[in-house]
């Protein structure tokens, strides 16, 4: 049996959402082909494994009794159990699926661990994860490949409060109200607010700075539609999902709207032909040009004929399976495809030469000066 690790939880504001994605994925993985093994990353960052973790009700009152601590080690594609500071190899790992949203998980931190342990992974590679995590870098990368984003101003906590009035003047000059204030590296909608005047702008910036030392202030659109589109690649073919429209109750989705109250979504979105195909084409292009892997979801803002990319989720909630699949069986097939794709990717990257013995260390020490 091929052992597939599913990582979820994490030191993150979106810990709980990740648990749902993770448990859902664990139970969807095809049981005849793979042995799905949970690796739950607790709020404090410890790794746990155990069959109890496959049950969602277990997390209501989380207790670590009955779970085993586990770790991955450099250059060994084996999961180790950690028991009273002793390591015990458990099994070889076939592939790892990363279901962590936000925080220390989505930004490439775990991709680095998988690479270092020589394990194929279902999630974007380091560069693309890190890029999608940071709202400013996303904008820089997107504009360089010719994709439209909203104009913005970046602020840093270290110097904002030193010259607050000057910075506010710059924002007012560059952007018109309303503006949207977002922490640069936080997922979902935590810390985000909309400002219609100077007072709200200041409050919003103070609020966002509680969550991140870097924030972006973006031009806020009025009368816009929010469209989501997901992409994944398998067998050399890029699958672009149908489009989904998110109905908004307020200007932005706040955290409670997004996760507690079910948001009204229209699927497939009612969009006329030309824009529809443009959005799908842009989605595919972003995925290919920025070298993504795994499943990503791109959030677009649409105003009349203008298309803007709002953000890229490198590990979307529920792996955005609902945009591709009608039911859980189809999700199971999709996961199998993703797992095999990750293994193929890993094999092809393994072809390149990784070390090179130039004999430098064999030179006698007298020849090496300092």
């Amino acid at each position, binding site marked *: 049996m091929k052992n597939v690790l599913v990582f979820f939880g994490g030191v993150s504001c979106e810990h709980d959402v990740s648990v749902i994605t993770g448990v859902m994925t664990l139970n969807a993985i095809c049981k005849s082909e793979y042995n799905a093994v949970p690796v739950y990353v607790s709020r404090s960052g410890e790794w746990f494994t155990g069959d109890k973790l496959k049950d969602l009700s277990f997390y209501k009152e989380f207790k670590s009794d009955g779970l085993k601590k586990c770790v991955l080690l450099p250059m060994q594609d084996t999961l180790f159990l950690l028991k009273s500071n002793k390591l015990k190899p458990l099994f070889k790992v076939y592939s790892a699926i990363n279901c962590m949203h936000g925080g220390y998980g989505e930004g490439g931190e775990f991709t680095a661990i998988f690479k270092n342990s020589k394990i194929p992974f279902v999630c974007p590679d380091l560069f693309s994860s890190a890029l999608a995590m940071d709202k400013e870098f996303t904008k820089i990368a997107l504009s360089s490949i010719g994709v439209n984003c909203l104009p913005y101003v970046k602020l840093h*906590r*270290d*110097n*904002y*409060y*030193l010259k*607050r*009035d000057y910075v506010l003047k710059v924002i007012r000059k560059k952007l018109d109200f309303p503006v949207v204030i977002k922490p640069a590296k936080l997922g979902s909608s935590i810390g985000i607010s909309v400002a219609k005047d100077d007072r709200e702008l*200041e*409050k919003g910036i*103070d*609020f966002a*700075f*509680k969550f991140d*030392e870097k924030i972006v202030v973006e031009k806020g659109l009025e009368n816009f539609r929010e469209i989501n589109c997901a992409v994944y690649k398998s067998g050399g073919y890029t699958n672009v999902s149908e489009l989904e429209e998110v109905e908004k109750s307020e200007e932005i989705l706040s955290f409670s709207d997004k996760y507690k109250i079910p948001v009204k979504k229209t699927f497939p979105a009612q969009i006329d032909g030309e824009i529809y195909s443009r959005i799908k084409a842009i989605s595919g292009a972003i995925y290919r040009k920025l070298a993504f892997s795994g499943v990503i979801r791109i959030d677009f803002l649409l105003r009349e004929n203008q298309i803007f990319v709002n953000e890229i989720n490198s590990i979307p909630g529920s792996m955005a399976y609902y945009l591709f699949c009608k039911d859980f069986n189809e999700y199971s097939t999709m996961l199998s495809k993703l797992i095999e794709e990750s293994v193929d990717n890993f094999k092809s990257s393994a072809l390149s030469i990784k070390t090179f013995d130039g004999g430098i260390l064999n030179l006698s020490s007298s020849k090496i000066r300092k």
Partner: protein
Amino acid sequence: MTLKNAITVLVLSTFCLIFFSCKINAIFQQCGYKIKEFFPAIINGKTRPMLKVSTYSLTFCVFLLIIVLFLSVNNTVFSSAVFILVCLHCGIYCITTSVIKNVKLTHRFLRIFITAILLNLCFCTATTLLFKTPKTHYFASLYLSIIPVFYPVLLSLAKIINLPYDFLRYKISVFRCEKIIAKNKNLIKIGITGSSGKTSVKNFLKKMLETKYSVLATPMSFNTPLGICKTVKGGIENFEVFIAEMGARYKNDIKTLCKIVKPNVGVITSILCQHTKTLGGIDGVKKAKNRLIEGLTGQKVAFFNNSSKENFDLYNKAECKKFLVGDGGFVKFKNAVQTKDGIDFELVVGEKTYRTFTPLLGFHNLENVCTATAVALYLQVDIGKILSVIPTLSPPKHRAEIIKTTSGVTVIDDGYNANIKGIISTATAVGKLDGEKFAVTSGIVELGEESENLNLKVGQVLGENFSLVIAMGINANSICDGVKSVGGKFIQLADMKSVKTYLSNKLKKGDVVAFFNDLPDAY
């Protein structure tokens, strides 16, 4: 009396002790194992714990005597009757007694507790041996019923027996601690004292200094010599700054602390009439705090928060490099406005003014921010870094903490704020917020003769700023008088439990509830 019966009495009395001691133990620990404070606390304390224990014991005693005197019973029946009675006695006591703050099972406590139990065994054996009459039943039952009342004395005796050992241990850990601190020659040592704001200033300063140094600070409100020893125990060779919070309940506390820490930088936050009973008036407080300035070593720099005349006097008196913070100082604040999210204000540093924000409640917190800023600036932390820390500050737990509940009620937890200045500051800050405002308080304790007047003032301030004042505890009457004098609404309730039920029926979305001094059992 047979040996079997003697053992039964032994076991039963130990059993009795363990159950009856829970609350008394907690109070003993909260008094810092000081016998001088312990007895007044258990006799005059808010809930009169000794009265309750005595009542229970007396009832028990009567029951036992009835059995012994009026029913002619044999040994077996008597033993089982006693056993059932002891169980009932302990059970009912435990159910009807609530311990607000449970006893912490520290080594020291366990040592004293076990000594007390051993003492009980000795007394018990002595009693049974001494009275070898046929009427041993009387003595046995009397002993059993008296033991809970006798327990505080046992505990004090146990403490006295442990004294030499504790003293030795204390000396050893202090000696070790001094050595550890002295080993790190470049360590910047900061001592913080004052009647209020110590923990806040320490936390704020730690956050600011951490942008440049690696900082060790005494955790939570550890402010005694042993607290400092515990903090330092793990070694400090990797740290560049050590911040020690210094509490002064008694005259020489700070002197002892200074001897251990040998601070280079001294910070006096504010001086109020607190702990006046143990320090001897406001002058005593002043003197006690000034020990920190006298105890400075090395570079010798002192910071004074110019919030009261007393502090200004100390500033004038100090004979080292000194800075004043606040009015007339080089760091101060102006144009402060309190909102439900925090305070908008302008921080003035020398000639420059920075407009900023901090998510705290009450302007006394701004004084703390200014003090921390002044010290951080002196230690060459970049003003940009300091300004980036200020909007992320949060108060220590239970110090004007703003909690937004899911039901839309804003809870202000000012549970540890036990001084008039803090209460005034929080109350006026809350007073400016929207919505119905409720205050829950048990007043200020330990003020000597001024107690009544100060609690009257607490009542006045709360009455002016809140829609309803809920008073409880021994100071409830003075507080209510205060509220009445300014024409506010008030209600007097027995304890936290009834407050909770009362409030849960009354609160609605948008309301604000502030808790002042939810004090532990000792009061």
